[in-house]
């Protein structure tokens, strides 16, 4: 009978961790939506520097304040075990990050880049106790209060993390043909933290990006910036080609084909917009 006490402990731990990650994921979703909203404020070249700067800070905050704690929770766990808990936040984050990246560099962000951003070196000092005992309710409480604006400039875990990334350069193989960088190598597993970015979630996030691009294109027409609209149409055509390449397989998640449908509609809206310019 006492083995059931052990079972109860294991189940509770799992459920609690799951709940904490879900909570973080929701915060990430909210913050990522804010970034996207911010980026839509760009109406001409002159707006870019200020808006992009602000977006960069916000994205950094999400990474340092939220993803870092998700990564801490995932130490020594099978990365897929809690994937369902954070997949929502991850897709929204990819959407925001890729939108930012597209506006900055006029290109699609790569999976490697996204994964790398969610790879942290564990800071040996401050966050240690929190991380070592993720079940400590006080630590969890402390974490919940963190993502407030006032603390943004504090010297904290996140900053040293971003340095750590520089040092590490390429600590792990960045491309993994088996569909995700999932090898927790024994040696580094204990020192570095990461949030796994499955390629499927990455691509789903990109699919959402097309909706934002469409909205931007329609905005540009309103502003009379018709060339920008044509450029975005071309970008969407390229994305569309990409998704066709991937192909909609039978066993593809319903989520994906729904998003591809949305992509098709977005593309056609932009096509219709370009048509109306030409008539």
């Amino acid at each position, binding site marked *: *009978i006492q083995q059931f006490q052990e079972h109860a402990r*294991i189940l509770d731990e799992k459920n609690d961790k799951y709940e904490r990650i879900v909570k973080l994921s929701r915060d990430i979703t909210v913050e990522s939506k804010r970034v996207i909203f911010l980026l839509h404020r760009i109406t001409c070249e002159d707006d870019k520097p200020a808006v992009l700067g602000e977006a960069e800070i916000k994205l950094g905050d999400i990474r340092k304040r939220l993803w870092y704690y998700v990564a801490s929770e995932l130490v020594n766990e099978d990365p897929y075990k809690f994937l369902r808990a954070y997949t929502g936040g991850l897709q929204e984050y990819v959407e925001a990050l890729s939108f930012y990246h597209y506006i900055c560099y006029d290109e699609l962000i790569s999976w490697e880049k996204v994964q790398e951003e969610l790879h942290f070196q564990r800071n040996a000092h401050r966050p240690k106790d929190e991380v070592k005992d993720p079940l400590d309710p006080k630590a969890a409480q402390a974490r919940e209060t963190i993502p407030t604006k006032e603390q943004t400039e504090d010297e904290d875990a996140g900053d040293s993390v971003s340095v750590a990334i520089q040092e590490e350069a390429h600590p792990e193989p960045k491309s993994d043909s088996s569909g995700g960088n999932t090898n927790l190598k024994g040696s580094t597993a204990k020192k570095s933290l990461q949030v796994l970015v499955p390629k499927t979630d990455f691509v789903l996030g990109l699919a959402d990006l097309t909706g934002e691009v469409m909205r931007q294109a329609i905005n540009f027409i309103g502003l009379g910036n018709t060339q920008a609209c044509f450029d975005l149409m071309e970008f969407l055509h390229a994305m569309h080609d990409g998704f066709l390449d991937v192909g909609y397989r039978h066993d593809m998640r319903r989520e994906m084909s729904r998003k591809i449908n949305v992509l098709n509609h977005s593309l056609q809206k932009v096509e219709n917009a370009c048509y109306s310019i030409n008539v």
Partner: protein
Amino acid sequence: EVFRDYAESIEAEHEVREKVRDKLRVIETLARESSAMLQHVHQPSGFAKIADITAQAERHLVDQIRPALAELSSSVPASQFYRYYAMFNYTLMRLCHLCSLIHFLKEGQLLTRAATAQDWLQIGQSRADGFYLEVDDYLGGLIQTSNELARFAVNCVTNQDFERPVQICEFLSTLLAGFRLLNLKNDNLRKKFDSLKYDMKKVEEVVYDLSI
């Protein structure tokens, strides 16, 4: 191109899935055979040779299911256990059920998770061991055993065995006490817990009938 890379990765995943599916199919066929053997204990003809039936089912499990499970285990990349978990989840539960049922028929006792994983199925007990037995699956298997035993209690009486129902009643009450310790968030387990309560009631009625 970012998409070509992704297409390859789903191709690779698809291949793992196909392999897992093949291995699973073998295990499921074997598990069905095992269930079919154990069904005989419910019948008048089988009731006399419970020990034989149990021994046969155990041998079948050791000699056939265990190696098949080892093959499944090796086809799942160790660090991606949960990626494919939903595929073999239910099958593992069923195997736990078979183990605990055979064990109960032999010993009249509850089989622990440690023993199920280590001695019977020879898979891991925790994440560190790679392919391992999750608590949920172990518990799910026990509930299946409870369903089977509730039915068995009825047939024992029909076959004039008035002792085993009492033993089953004890087994179920231990199980029920254990489950009461759990904080059942998991909807699936909760529903199963209800069926356990129902089984308990049924067996108590049988024991009551016997006492009068």
